[in-house]
């Protein structure tokens, strides 16, 4: 893995700190008129998803983390483990519910996801930013009520419960933002 000097540091780079992989979320350069430059980094732990702030001096060097991503297909759940398959190598990976960090709510058989590896082991998974899921259950909408500012809970085919506009019916297809868990729009097929 490459060793970086502080002036190489950029948002989006991955570093290994205290034996764990981190993503640089924010990089802040500070330098007194006389004196050494400092780099304050906001770092996201790619395993625990926690955020850390660290300040480095311009003479420090940092270790890059061997982090990669690839596209995988969701196959099935087995107890608390979720099984994915690499779309090109057909290799299978198991991730725990913890590692999914809530993503399991929107997983559907065959869905293409992005898995993050650290030193060759899967550490987290991200479903597509937008997915289309069928409404399995919701209260019927009131007749003639077309107001869009009213919302109600709906249950999706994956079991996730989200908030959607009052006019939504069972069997409708909804576009969902998986990062926020929010309803975007109703779609046709």
């Amino acid at each position, binding site marked *: 893995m490459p060793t970086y000097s502080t002036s190489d540091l950029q948002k989006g780079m991955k570093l290994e700190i205290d034996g764990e992989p981190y993503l640089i979320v924010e990089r*802040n*350069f500070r330098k007194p008129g006389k*004196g050494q430059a400092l780099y304050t980094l906001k770092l996201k732990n790619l395993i625990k998803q926690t955020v850390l702030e660290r300040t480095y001096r311009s003479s*420090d060097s940092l270790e890059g983390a061997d982090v990669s991503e690839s596209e995988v297909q969701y196959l099935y759940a087995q107890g608390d483990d979720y099984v994915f398959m690499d779309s090109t190598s057909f290799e299978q990976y198991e991730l725990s519910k913890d590692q999914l960090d809530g993503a399991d709510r929107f997983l559907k058989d065959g869905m293409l996801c992005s898995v993050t590896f650290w030193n060759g082991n899967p550490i987290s998974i991200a479903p597509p930013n937008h997915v289309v899921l069928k409404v399995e259950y919701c209260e019927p909408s009131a007749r003639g009520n077309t107001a869009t500012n009213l919302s109600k809970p709906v249950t999706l085919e994956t079991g996730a419960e989200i908030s959607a506009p009052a006019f939504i019916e069972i069997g409708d297809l909804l576009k969902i933002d998986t990062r926020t868990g929010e309803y975007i729009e109703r779609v046709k097929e």
Partner: protein
Amino acid sequence: MDKDFRSSATWETLRQRSELLQKLRAFFLQSGYVEVETPLLLSESIIDCYLDPLVTQLRSPHVRSLQGKSLYLQTSPELGMKRLLASGAESIFQIGKAFRDDEFGDLHNPEFTLCEWYCLGDKMADQVNFLGELCQTMLNSAEPEVLTYAEAFQRSLGLNPLDCELADLLNAAANGNTPSSFAEEEMDRDDVLNWLLSEKVELSLGQDRPTILTNYPASQAALAELDPELPGTACRFELYVKGIELANGYQELLDSQALRERSQLQQKKRIENGKAKLSPPESLFAAMDAGLPTCSGVALGYDRLAMLALGKTTIAEVIPFPADRI
């Protein structure tokens, strides 16, 4: 990546910046200073371990002494202005560009505008007052509080930066975002002080009203006289507004031999840090040999001043084309 052709600062801001510049100029003219222009391109540089000039060359210089020589874009106009003072100039000011390599961030751009001035006959206390007046005029601020570097450390960290043990400084640095290299290396005392100032002290400076810090440690004198009244400190002062370093001033060092020694020390530190050697400022040594009159001078970051005056939080909001758009 596609570069944005548009200005990062709005036209309204650039118009206000222009008005502010006229106001700043008027302030100096009314105070009896003469505006000067000195070259940005020089064959020598002030030597500071942590200031890196941009280096270039003339293809066919037509001047024999410049043949094959590295030339520098100035990191500040100090060299030229002090040569002018030793050549018989009166109190002078200059508003122009300076360049510093490897500096880019919310408060930094490798090319920036400096306002620098020198007042003949002034001691540190006189220029601390003058800087306070300038700050009140340009930022409509309250009168700045004046405290020593040691007092600021005492207030924020409860220790005396001038005579405490290095271990105490490292201890104070240890809670918080300390990089692990602090423990591993033989630390330079000034590097630890600098880290503490930036990380622990600076943010509290200039919050309710501007702060002028005076009497930096003698080891950080740069081009300032040592202060005989406060042993171990230099007649160096800095202005902070809202935690941001805005200006750096000295009662100027007059002894050329002392400057030669400080330059050698900085050059040595540069080499230890794997940095390029710089051509020493021989013409400044010569000017000081001939006699630099007693004077005090200040360099003020004009982009930061404009940023604070116009209520912005980044330099990119007050200059049209920061380094990522050039």
